[in-house]
């Protein structure tokens, strides 16, 4: 909770959450909001279905505190598209356009308050992720793009923390560890070890992850694991969290700084060609 010092001067790096009151927001007027998005889906036999919520929430809180700005840390939106896990016990799936609507509506409501910078944490990502394309949630990339194009006075960016930390983490978590494997198990062992139930066998399907676009997860991995949970440790989890927070803070500061140079684009009039 952001606390008020004497007078109207607050320390830099003040984080506003749902525990603050409206007048506290009004006195300081945060300029940046962080929207963490999670998914509610199976994570093997040993990790909670709320794994993403736990990880993204923890990363978002740490990132928010390091931005040297007044930040509105929004609550984690707990359900995503979870396409590959549809129909499985414990999965809650939104349609892509529904999730798009959630992001767009929240961004629009922030704009009313004069909060013109939005950082969407689009899941936690993977160190071997492709970077410019998000792991598992491309609809959010689309939503952010449209927000920027359609709301010239708003600056929205998306990121996936473990993807940004790829250079630092690729050696520690090599390719093939995609879901409920080494990375997620390690991070939970660090954050909430009481919620980790044993260690299931490693399993890396021979098929490429792109098969998830047309095949249910459970058909590619009957155990629900895609990776190497046997390699997990709390120390690796701590390393992963720190690297992800550092990389995300750097990205946000640099990117918002760079984009701040651009004035809101003036809309160009469509040039109609008279068919007659």
């Amino acid at each position, binding site marked *: 909770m952001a606390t008020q010092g004497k007078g109207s001067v607050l320390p830099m790096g003040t984080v506003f959450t749902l525990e603050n009151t*409206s007048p506290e927001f009004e006195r300081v007027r945060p300029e940046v909001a962080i929207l963490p998005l999670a998914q509610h889906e199976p994570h093997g036999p040993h990790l909670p279905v709320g794994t993403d919520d736990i990880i993204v929430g923890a990363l978002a809180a740490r990132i928010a505190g390091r931005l040297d700005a007044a930040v509105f840390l929004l609550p984690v939106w707990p359900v995503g598209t979870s396409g590959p896990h549809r129909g499985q016990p414990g999965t809650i799936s939104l349609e892509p356009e529904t999730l798009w609507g959630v992001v767009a509506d929240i961004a629009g409501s922030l704009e009313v308050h004069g909060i013109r910078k939005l950082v969407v944490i689009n899941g936690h990502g993977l160190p071997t992720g492709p970077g410019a394309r998000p792991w598992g949630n491309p609809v959010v990339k689309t939503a952010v793009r449209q927000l920027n194009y359609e709301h010239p006075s708003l600056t929205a960016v998306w990121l996936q923390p473990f993807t940004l930390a790829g250079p630092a983490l690729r050696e520690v978590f090599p390719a093939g560890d995609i879901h409920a494997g080494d990375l997620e198990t390690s991070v939970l062992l660090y954050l909430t070890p009481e919620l980790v139930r044993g260690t299931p066998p490693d399993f890396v399907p021979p098929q490429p992850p792109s098969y998830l676009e047309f095949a249910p997860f459970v058909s590619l991995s009957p155990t629900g694991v895609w990776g190497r949970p046997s390699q997990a440790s709390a120390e690796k989890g701590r390393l992963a969290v720190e690297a992800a927070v550092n990389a995300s803070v750097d990205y946000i500061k640099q990117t918002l700084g760079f984009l701040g140079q651009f004035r809101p684009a003036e809309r160009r009039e469509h040039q109609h060609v008279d068919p007659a």
Partner: protein
Amino acid sequence: MLDNRATWSDFRSRRPELAVLGIGATEQHGPHLPVGTDLLAVDALARQVAERLNAWLLPPLPVSLSECHGPLGGTVWLKPATLAAVLGDIARSLEEQGVRVLVVINGHGGNFILEPAVEKLNRTLSSLKVLLAPESLALLPGDSPIFATADREVHAGEVETSVVLYLRPDLVRPPRPDGALSVGREFLDYVTMERLNPEGVWGCPGFADAEKGRRAFAARVEAITRYVLDAVQWLAREGHGDSG
């Protein structure tokens, strides 16, 4: 009871047929209450109800139709169609995995779209019923009313403040200014809250105390639980939920 700390194995072995979803909000609540008031209250309420019913407790939605609080700080919102779509998608996810009843507990008064959305889902889903939990309290005949000013409250008054004093007294700050408005409750359909009271209060928080909050909370848990059990029993008799 299952929540998001449970694993896939838990869900596969337990196969819950009853789920509970709280709908919270992120919105101004006057100078004395946190912007997360609706979420924290519905979170606690849904958890208690789910425990009583041994149901699947879904994570509460943290944002809903708070545009009525417009530009007042700390407020974000969804549009009505989006909230209806979220509820529909959640209901279909649950139906796909064999849940038969979804109890929706609304934590924010402005979510009027829920009633038609629920009615439509109940017409269009084949094996899941959605029950919208009643707003009333289970008071026994002879019980004294809990609140003195509930009829004058729309937002952040005696009722809401009492509940937060019960659940999280550390989050209630002074002052607690009363907001007495002479217009009808429907006026939030016409203007946003700050036009009616820039402090954002519509009610009498000065009357609040933790004991009232405790009584009301318990009464609401009881009312919802009983309503659901009665409705589920009735639905079973009427043929919904028969596995043949």
